[in-house]
């Protein structure tokens, strides 16, 4: 087994009744990689991701995340991953600091560590002025950046981002990707879904899901060559339209 592979998926399948949401997908993700997980709405991206983060049981196949089996060791996986859902999931009625403290606390960080972490995090995100404001009062872009930072609090090996930049302005989007690069530089593997094809270009490797199956998987450059397309946008359109 290759230790550099932090995610190994083989024939992973999820069915809802007779509907196959994820149809026997197979792929690997290497340590420190930014892995783009693309697909149209309803292609099965989020379902696939939920199986990998241990909150949805697969029907069949094999998957190992951070070295742990999703079938038998879901709780061990959870110690080693961060997750940011497409729905903003911090507490609107808690302040920035309180949110950081709470999530740090349930990941088992010490009081001291939480204090240090939140000081650094608030400084990096330039949230000093709103540190004691309720999160609900912040603009969406700030919330998303905070949410990403919170998912990295416990220094996970892999962070899963489900459409992290949905509804966010271009400047914030850019800052967000700078944060992603920084995390990847520090050795965190980033698994990200997106609908923005310019963002797909930033990824090391990209997979494109169509109707529950992975139809293409390679670096953006090679995918463009393979599909004789100018941009990732064209690649996506060719694939998604069938």
């Amino acid at each position, binding site marked *: 087994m290759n230790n550099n592979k932090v995610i190994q998926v083989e024939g992973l399948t999820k069915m809802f009744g007779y509907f196959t949401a994820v149809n026997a997908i197979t792929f690997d993700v290497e340590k420190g990689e930014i892995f783009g997980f693309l697909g149209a709405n309803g292609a099965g991206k989020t379902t696939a991701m939920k199986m990998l983060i241990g909150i949805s049981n697969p029907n069949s196949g094999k998957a190992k995340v951070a070295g742990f089996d999703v079938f038998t060791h879901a709780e061990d996986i959870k110690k080693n991953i961060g997750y940011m859902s497409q729905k903003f*999931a911090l507490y609107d*009625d808690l302040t920035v600091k309180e949110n950081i403290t709470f999530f740090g606390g349930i990941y088992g960080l010490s009081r001291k560590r939480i204090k240090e972490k939140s000081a650094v995090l608030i400084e990096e995100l330039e949230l000093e002025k709103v540190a004691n404001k309720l999160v609900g009062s912040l603009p969406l872009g700030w919330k998303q950046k905070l949410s990403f930072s919170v998912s990295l609090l416990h220094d996970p090996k892999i962070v899963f981002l489900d459409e992290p930049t949905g509804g966010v302005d271009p400047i914030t989007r850019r800052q967000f990707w700078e944060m992603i690069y920084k995390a990847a530089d520090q050795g965190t593997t980033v698994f990200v879904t997106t609908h923005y094809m310019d963002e797909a270009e930033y990824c090391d490797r990209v997979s494109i899901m169509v109707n529950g199956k992975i139809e293409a998987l390679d670096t953006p450059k090679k995918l463009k060559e393979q599909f004789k397309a100018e941009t990732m946008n064209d690649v996506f359109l060719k694939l998604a339209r069938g």
Partner: protein
Amino acid sequence: MKTILYIVQKEFKQIFRNKGMLPIIFVLPLLQLVILSNAATFEVKHIKFGYIDKDRTSTSRALVEKFNASTYFDVLTNFPSEALASSAMLKGEVDVVLEIPHYFERDLQKEKYNTLGVTINAIDGAAAGVENVYVTQIVQRFNQNLKVELLQVSDQQIQPITIETIPLFWYNETLNYKTFMVPGILVLLVTMITLFLSGMNIVREKEIGTLEQINVTPIKKSQFIIGKLFPFWVIGMGLLTVGLILAKLIFHVPMLGSLPLMYLYTSIYILVILGIGLFISNFTETQQQAMFIAWFFTVIFILMSGLFTPIESMPKWAQLFTEFNPIKYFVEVMRMVMLKGSGFMDILPQLLKTLTYAVIMNGLAVWRYRKTT
């Protein structure tokens, strides 16, 4: 353990930050306690009384005067005819109509026997029963007086023999309904608030999506659930305390038994309710659904708790059903400890049943709670 503290801390912050929720938790229930305890009475008072006096003699007037003197009967209307009386009853202007026949006085003196007609509006059967007893009592008392008078004028040899029962009411000597109702209503409030809050709380996190975020953390189910429910347990106990103080100060409800015993029982009882709340939140997706289900159970539990209607008079199957009603046990224990001064051994059966219930309910709820679906 530390993890639990973080959750408890967060829950309390959220509860006390929610300005709309605080009055619902603390002010409304106590307002209800004061209002309901004063209003929810089974005493039948202010009975609207009418009579048709066809006799028009001193005896018939004396009889009417008896009703007039009673504190239970309010309005005295003299109806000239049956037709007018029955139309008044139809309109709800009168509850009880007494009909005194022609030659009432004459027949009574001659034959020492007579009949009176009493019509009672029996839409509310329980009230009608009570009214019937009142009327009978007044007529009987009138009868005794009359017998004595009649005896004096005629037969001296036969002494009237009256066997009278002197009722002794134990535990609530003055038959004060508030003494009886306040502990029961306090039970309802503690139950409803803790059930609704705990039932809706986890569902709310489902709705806003934070539950998913929690489920991707390595937190243990038991840690999460204990941390979530503990604040509501505290609120329940707080509510009981404030309620007991009000019961003492406003209603002067006696507190014969031991206070620690009451708290011991309540602390276990609230666990049952929290378990039910958690169980409901496992099966529902929205706060609305949780609310309806919680409401459904509360109504059944309340109506079959023995609070408003005695369990002894329910059909057998219903009595069996009440064995599964936690509110029933709480009402029993409250009344036993507060009014009878029952001790630990007296309430042991209820205590054990409640404890079993708590273990089963919370076991089921924790088992049903899934971090992975």
